[in-house]
């Protein structure tokens, strides 16, 4: 599963402003709604529903909120770097500043899981996260996310 299949340069937000987890999710839902043509509220509800099962703040300043939505035609990814880190209820209780949102159609099945595993592995790479935190423009962020990294070379 290639990251390129999930995001385009247009689905990167270089400096998202949010002061809370809820607000961040709302912002992301809004942008995802623009991209997918779905209703903002629907996306937000699905994300919130998922957070209730357990946080998607996977630690080290990273969150990977995700959910399944009827009416999507494919997997959609959305990456945002927050201007200031926020409390996200993360597993390590550390503030989050890198968020990768992943939305899957009802029918995605195994692809959904593969995409999640791929994103999670990508963001577990420390050097990549450092580069993401160092970049400040959407195209630079996109390049870091999609670069064939050392860990992906094999």
């Amino acid at each position, binding site marked *: 599963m290639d990251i390129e299949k999930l995001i385009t340069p247009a689905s990167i937000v270089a400096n998202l402003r949010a002061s809370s987890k809820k607000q961040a999710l709302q912002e992301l839902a809004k942008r995802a709604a623009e991209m997918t043509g779905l209703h903002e509220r629907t996306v937000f509800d699905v994300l919130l529903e998922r957070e209730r099962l357990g946080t998607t703040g996977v630690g080290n300043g990273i969150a990977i909120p995700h959910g399944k939505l009827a009416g999507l035609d494919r997997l959609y990814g959305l990456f945002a770097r927050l201007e200031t880190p926020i409390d996200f209820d993360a597993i390590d209780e550390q503030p989050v500043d890198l968020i990768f949102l992943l939305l899957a159609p009802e029918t995605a099945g*195994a692809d959904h899981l593969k995409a999640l595993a791929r994103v999670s592995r990508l963001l577990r790479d420390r050097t990549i996260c450092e580069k993401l935190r160092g970049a400040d423009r959407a195209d630079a962020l996109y390049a870091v996310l999609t670069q064939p990294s050392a860990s992906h070379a094999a």
Partner: protein
Amino acid sequence: MASISFVNTLLLLGAMLVLAGIFSSLIASRFGAPLLLVFLIIGMLAGEDGPGGLLFNDYQLAYLVGSLSLAVILFDGGLRTKLSSFRGVLVPSMLLATVGVVVTATLTGIAALYLLDLSLIEGLLVGSIVASTDAAAVFFLLRAGGLQLRRRVGSTLEIESATNDPAAVLMTVVLVELLLAGEGGPTWDVVGMLGRQALIGTTVGVAGGLAASWLLNKVELPAGLHPLFVVASAVLIFALTAVGGGSGFLAVYLAGLVLGNRPIRAFASITSFHDAATWLCQIAMFIVLGLLVTPSRLLEYAIPALLIAAWLIIFARPLAVWLCVLPFKYSRAETVFVSWVGLRGAVSIFLAAIPMLTGLPHAEVYFNVAFFVVLVSLVVQGWTINAAAKRLGLALPRKGAEVRRVELDLPGQLDYEMVGYPISADSAVLEHVAVPGWARLVLVIRENRVLNPTEAGPLRVGDYAYFLAPPWQVYRLDRLFATSAEAREADGELFGEFAINGNVALGVLTDIYGLTIPPEIRGTTIADLFDERFEEEPQTGDRLPLGEATLVVREVDGDRVVRAGLQLPEAAGAVGSPLLRKGVRRFLTPAVAWARRVQMALSQLSKRAWFGLSRSRETSQGPLSGDQQENR
């Protein structure tokens, strides 16, 4: 003069062989070869057919070295077995160690009977010689291989292998005596002899263990003498039982078990001494056995021996295991794995030396066949043990982050030990992770000053932090002092991608991820699922499959799972890129770790053996008395 130079030559040769064994551990772990096999091969290379050209045929000496080593190894096995790990696996393990041995021996014996053209009792003797799984080999390969098995499988195998040697030894000794006495002794004699051996062994072993622990706590010994006292007591218990007509091996194992599960002083120094002693015994035993065999003669028995080994591995052992665990609902994967880890080892070769020693007819047949079977088992099973565990989904990938840890034994009490860690710039503890409540920070050493926690405030780079923690949980602290990257990687690999609360219903969860589960468990929560599937309380790291994914226990409160990790299927099973990268490290890290461990063990050994005597008594009185050991 001649005899002095002979002694010197002997010492030279012995030391060279041991050193060769130690260094070969580096090569062995790099190629994943079972170390015991390497020791054996070094012995064979040094022997009469190899470049070493040493002619060694002293079965008496080999038996002496073998008995002594085996006694120490078994004692160590007992010492390290916590009775609590018996929970839930005691009965199946005991069945395997008794009924399993008899079934394996009989089935193998029947094959040997035909293949080697022996009488019934002689055939059974071959069967008994190779019937027991080798505690040394199993413990060693399970632990040193860095393999973290699911609790039930690991405990079953360890307890089985530690307790089945006495059964095989008993059978062998009894059969040899029968053969010596002439054919056709009445069977009740055999039963009586078995009973007597077991009874005396149990009595002396338990009594000896109790006496040793009582003495250890009662008598004030210089600190360095505790481990020596224990090892000497072990040998005494072994020899005393054997002289009195009991099973010394059973006795010494039980004594270790008693000692290891009672509060005794200096436990840390005793176990670290035994680490070294066990290593030395393994090396000595395998090298001597390798020397003893004549490889060219071995080949004469290659074909029947190979067939016996194949029969044992493919048919006899699996059938015996299957019969023994039948009532206990082991999964197919578990049964297969337990069968596969029927490693034969030094015990079998050692037992095969008994007929030689007593001058039985066909003695050479027993010895060479047994040797060959062990060789095959070590190569085929020993080499594939990790792969098998992963293939069958029984391995837990707990990656031990490499941490320097100092352990201090606190005399007089056993609920806590003191551990110290250096804080480096990227220690996880500096970044985010909180120190768990059960670990108490007691002092910080900063710039050569000793500070109490209040004075010290938050930990800084370059500090040495000392904690009081329950010994059985200490390893969990390691994570905090690993570099945070390592800790995070270990976490992600172990616990999966996402954390899910324990009260979530499975149906809700599986809908989101498109996982398929039986409809009747959709309403069950994660916590309930672990409750139902585990007879004992679940522990962090316990795993259950959930459709295509895996649930891993992350946090437990009392006996309820409050948080579990969801491990996605691709990450769990893929041979993806990070795994490859890790693969390289997986070969290198153990090699380095082993080298350090061996080095440490040897320095401990020499320190304790030679300087322990001169240690002053005062040092053993202080609160942090003496037994400092650095683990890496």
